[in-house]
């Protein structure tokens, strides 16, 4: 300590260390700008600028060429009174209900089991659950198309061996959503398992030992100890997956093309349909309505978590 005071007091003795100290302070002030600048430059050009452009576009009737006419809130009021928009949002909401509870519960159970260091084959499981996550989505979607084919698919072939009839997995509006939900669950659950594992790591093993001695069942330990202790990680996963479900686009685009009868036209796919028709203004407005929905849901979840904390 005395040494530090000493060096701070002494620079007046010789000019060179003082100048060096000045220069290093100056460098330290300049440094963050230099570090952040490349990111900000790319981010501003290809992130912020297009975002603002879209915002402006959402108030015009622009169709990709010619002059854009300012139409005020017309695109928004049109969408809010449009059946297609609401059915796409409700399709996404149904998918959310089919996916999220199952995914969080399943991932939590898997993560709790894998958190046990003495579990055999532990690293095999960790890799196996992540295989679907790293598989290219387009490849996965194609596998789904073939495996769930009504006439030639492997799944119906399995059903037939048990004497069960064919199911129109991708061709009936009753089954298309669950089949799509299954694809999403299969593809992303492994990633949620790893995220939850990271939360579980911070739980002290003694807590479980104490619960064991008290004779608490595994289920009660899960409900009373594990879930409260990882609730932040669970909430993070919930927000992340809510975002992903409402933005879901490529899965229905490749597997069902939104059909049958629009039953798998998700909010993300509906948005694309405007763009594809050249109706850019409406597409832009649709994007921002989607952002508002997702933000509202995220804030709701965060608020619920806060209430829980109190």
């Amino acid at each position, binding site marked *: 300590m005395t040494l530090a005071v000493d060096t701070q007091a002494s620079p007046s003795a010789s000019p060179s260390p003082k100048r060096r100290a000045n220069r*290093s302070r100056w*460098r330290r002030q300049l*440094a*963050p*700008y230099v*570090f952040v600048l*490349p*990111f*900000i430059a*790319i*981010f501003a050009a*290809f992130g*912020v600028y*297009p*975002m603002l*452009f*879209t915002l402006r*576009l959402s108030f015009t009737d622009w169709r990709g060429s010619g002059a854009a006419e300012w139409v005020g809130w017309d695109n928004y009021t049109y969408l809010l009174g449009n059946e297609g928009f609401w059915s796409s949002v409700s399709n996404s909401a149904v998918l959310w209900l089919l996916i999220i509870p199952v995914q969080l519960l399943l991932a939590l159970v*898997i993560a709790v*089991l894998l958190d046990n260091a003495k*579990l055999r*084959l532990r690293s095999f499981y960790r*890799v196996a*659950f*992540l*295989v*679907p996550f*790293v*598989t*290219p*989505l*387009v*490849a996965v979607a*194609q*596998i789904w198309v*073939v*495996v769930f084919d009504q006439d*030639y698919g492997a799944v119906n072939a399995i059903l037939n*061996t048990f004497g069960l009839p064919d199911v129109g997995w991708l061709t009936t509006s009753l089954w298309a959503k669950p089949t799509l939900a299954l694809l999403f669950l*299969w593809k992303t659950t*492994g990633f949620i398992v*790893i*995220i939850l594992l*990271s*939360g579980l790591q*911070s739980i002290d093993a003694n807590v479980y030992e104490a619960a064991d001695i008290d004779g608490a069942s595994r289920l009660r330990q899960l409900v009373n100890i594990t879930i409260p202790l990882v*609730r*932040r*990680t669970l909430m993070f996963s919930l927000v992340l997956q809510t*975002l992903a479900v409402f*933005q879901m*686009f490529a899965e229905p685009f490749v597997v069902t093309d939104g059909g049958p009868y629009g039953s798998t036209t998700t909010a993300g796919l509906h*948005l*694309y349909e405007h*763009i594809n028709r050249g109706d*850019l203004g409406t597409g832009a407005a649709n*994007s921002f309505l*989607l*952002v508002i929905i*997702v933000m509202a849901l995220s804030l709701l979840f965060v608020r619920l978590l806060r209430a829980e904390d109190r």
Partner: protein
Amino acid sequence: MTTTLPGSAARPRPRRVSLVTVRSQIFLLLLTLAFLAPVAWALLSAFKPANRIISDPLSFDPTSATLDNFTRMFADVPIGQGFLNTAVVLVFKGAITLFFAPLAAYGFAKYTFPLKNMLFGTVLITLMLPTIVLIIPLLLQMKELGWVNTYQALILPGAVDAFAVFWMRQVIAAVPDELLDAARVDGCREFALFRRVVLPVIKPALAGLAVLTVMNIYNDFVWPVVVASSERMATLQVVLSTLAQNITGNRIGADYATITGELLAAASVALVPLLVIFVALQRHFINGILAGSVKG
């Protein structure tokens, strides 16, 4: 609790634990089987004669294994060019992300400067936006720059991912300030601090980011379809998706079985390199995510 004898309480415990492990092993094995089955099925079926994939989807006869699906697929679509394009994008975009994202994150985490919070807030907002929102203006931008069907268009937009900066900031914020101050006293300059102190400390998370980045770029599909759909510029995923559209689009002169065979062959070819990379690096990836975690 107090009434139970010590002996009677102690004996059943080991049995209960082992029963639980057996049950959880069965549960996990069945579940991993379900997770691996579709991929395994696709890989095996790609080597079956095309008509057998359809007539007999559940059997695999090694004696009738064939490369027909692969040769037909290679003749049909420019998948080699797709690989090359993906590789070019991967190298440049990956390098930009892995260098500039942690660097910016370091600036955000360890320094104070005006507008810092506003800038970082903007980063968080873009995390909420669906990527499709940006596609129209980005495409117009590319048209104006004359970048449609170029590598720049595939590389630069999204090159420094907002999520990467957000994640790395969390990780770097956890690096103790004392470590940096000690290095400063030793005469380390600001950039050298990043290179010699920060980067080595966050290596596990950086490895995690590397795998995630490679995966995202390799699997990226929506933006390439829009901006680089020409045969010369098509990435691997774009090639795959055009093949997939053949199945619904009823291509003239090709039957369902042939296209399905080609499709599975193409999916296998696309899948295997990433699986190999992932299995080779899985330890880094998993530990990286575990290291850069949201606690509690």
